[in-house]
């Protein structure tokens, strides 16, 4: 025990003497958290303040184009910029000046009206309410095409959401036109409302919650746990560098000749770096609760969750330290440990669902994500942050995190003992 305390104190001194390293350990994760939360905030906002400029080529100049224009304006997501020609719009989009151009074809409103009228008359004639139109006299109305030009650099998710939005808008216009056509055919009185044109089916977003509290999954609630975990796992880099330095300085050689076990040496490192993880986590929470609201971001909601959150941070920290101990034991140089540690964290984060939710990953990657300690940590954090989970809900994840720490530490000790067996 005395040797463990001495080793812990030595590690503490080494850490506080490295001001640059300390700054990186505490300031960089905070910068990461603030930056990512600010960037991702709009994704989570229902009403966004940032408007995407969109080119609109209105060759129709009718009711439909007016509806599309109004629909786009109402979303509050787009700033409509008029462009005279399709070629001009195409060029500007391909040059990357705009992300999107919408080209509305000529006579869209007239042709839609004609087509709808024709269809309505056809239906009414079947019911004997109107005269049947001679098929020879029927107008041939060509299908109309609303063209969307996207900047090649535009992300798929953005493309999909814009396409879906415009598709929905056009469908609504078509339905509206059909209702109007029926109205005109069935009554002379324009004030008489035969149809209720309001949407019958509407959506309401309800967040499943086992308490009366309604916690909205905003950018802060999502980003703080994800990026805190990311930062906690980055601790493996300074830790493994610390161990490689000891090898290069020769102090490890001295310790091998002294009557102190490798597990005691690792124990000292574990205790100090675990404290670092906990302090890092506390700072992240502080930023989430007090600093992010100042920056116009949603406040991190942590009421009644602090003890559980620290339990998750404790075990996530242990897992991250286990990884660092293993890397530090195996690596011979800092050039090996630092890039390997960074790459591993990025891979584990990607697998763990820090960047892309696990459910949208291919099946094989979803299976792989189950072996990422970041996935266990993130699920535990979400259980506490968003699902108000208690100890019972997180016990599986924290057990896995602890087993990961135990396994990596045992491998480190066995590797060290075998390599240095005398």
């Amino acid at each position, binding site marked *: 025990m*005395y*040797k463990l305390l001495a080793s812990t104190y030595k590690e503490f001194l*080494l850490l506080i003497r490295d001001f640059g390293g300390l700054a990186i350990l505490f300031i960089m994760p905070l910068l990461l958290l603030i930056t990512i939360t600010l960037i991702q905030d709009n994704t989570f906002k229902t009403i966004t303040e940032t408007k995407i400029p969109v080119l609109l080529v209105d060759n129709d100049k009718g009711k439909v184009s007016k509806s599309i224009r109004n629909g786009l304006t109402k979303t509050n997501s787009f700033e409509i910029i008029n462009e005279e020609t399709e070629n001009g719009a195409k060029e500007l989009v391909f040059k990357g000046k705009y992300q999107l151009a919408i080209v509305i074809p000529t006579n869209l409103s007239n042709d839609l009206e004609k087509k709808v009228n024709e269809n309505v008359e056809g239906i009414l004639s079947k019911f004997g309410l109107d005269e049947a139109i001679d098929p020879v006299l029927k107008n041939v109305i060509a299908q109309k095409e609303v063209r969307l030009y996207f900047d090649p650099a535009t992300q798929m998710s953005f493309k999909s959401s814009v396409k879906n939005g415009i598709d929905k808008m056009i469908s609504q216009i078509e339905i509206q036109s059909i209702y109007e056509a029926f109205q005109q055919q069935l009554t002379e009185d324009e004030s008489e409302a035969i149809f209720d044109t309001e949407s019958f089916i509407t959506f309401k977003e309800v967040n499943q919650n086992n308490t009366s509290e309604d916690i909205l999954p905003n950018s802060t609630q999502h980003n703080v746990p994800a990026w805190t975990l990311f930062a906690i796992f980055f601790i493996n880099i300074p830790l493994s560098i610390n161990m490689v330095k000891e090898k290069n*300085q020769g102090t490890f*050689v001295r310790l091998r*000749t*002294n009557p102190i076990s490798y597990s005691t040496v690792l124990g000292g490192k574990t205790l100090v770096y675990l404290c670092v993880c906990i302090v890092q986590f506390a700072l992240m929470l502080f930023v989430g609760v007090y600093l992010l609201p100042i920056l116009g971001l949603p406040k991190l909601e942590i009421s009644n969750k602090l003890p559980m959150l620290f339990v998750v941070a404790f075990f996530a920290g242990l897992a991250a330290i286990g990884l660092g101990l293993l890397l530090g034991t195996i690596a011979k140089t800092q050039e090996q440990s630092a890039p390997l540690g960074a790459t591993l964290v990025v891979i584990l984060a990607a697998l763990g669902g820090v960047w892309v939710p696990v459910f949208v990953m291919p099946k094989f990657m979803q299976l792989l994500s189950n072996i990422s300690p970041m996935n266990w940590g993130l699920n535990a954090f979400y259980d506490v942050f968003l699902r108000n989970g208690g100890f019972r809900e997180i016990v599986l994840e924290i057990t896995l995190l602890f087993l990961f720490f135990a396994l990596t530490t045992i491998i480190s000790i066995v590797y060290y003992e075998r390599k240095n067996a*005398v």
Partner: protein
Amino acid sequence: MIQLHQLSKKYRGTDFYSVSKVDLAIDDGEIFGLLGPNGAGKTTLISMLSSLIKPTSGSFTINGLNYKEHKNQLKKLIGIVPQEYALYHTLTAFENLRYFGSTYGLKGARLKENIDEHMENLGLSDFANKKIESFSGGMKRRINLIASILHEPKVLFLDEPTVGVDVQSKNAIIKRLKQLNEIGTTIIYTSHHLNEAENFCTRVAIIDRGQLICKGKPKELIEQNTNTTNLEEVFLVKTGTELRDHV
């Protein structure tokens, strides 16, 4: 007593023995010098005796304790001064010594007294609270020595303890080693400074290409070899003048 029996070491990936079938007995209280050109096997031999590397074959005992069965007991019995400065550069001299002392179970007043005494003897008292990174090579060598003798080892291994230091530091180190020897510490050291070894050692062994070439008191070795007047000349007679560059 240190007893080596047919001790050999062949590193993985090499086709030669760095140390080959060395038989040697070193008595308690001796100052024994292991001399040899670069790559002769001196460091390998000391590394085996200090439990840093595993012998390929053969065995050795220190004070009757076999290295395989009494590893932890042996660690408490011996002290090793490595060739490199095995110190934490951002810690002070005192912090380094307190930590290394604690790994031997030393604590409290005894640990502090030991540190103060050795710092005093090696002229470093005024620098106890200075960081190692600000120390000169000679000062680091002396701290390196203190870190290995705080627990008062019965046997002290030193791998080139005076390399790269000024005459004053070298003198202080040798003086302190003689004091330790006077109180019963057996000293085994390697060096390229043959004049130093001639004056300092009670016995020396010359090793070349992993083999023990000769051993004895420096004076006797000089007398045994005609036309030699000092240990350096004996060394050249025994090991030749061929350069020993190796990678």
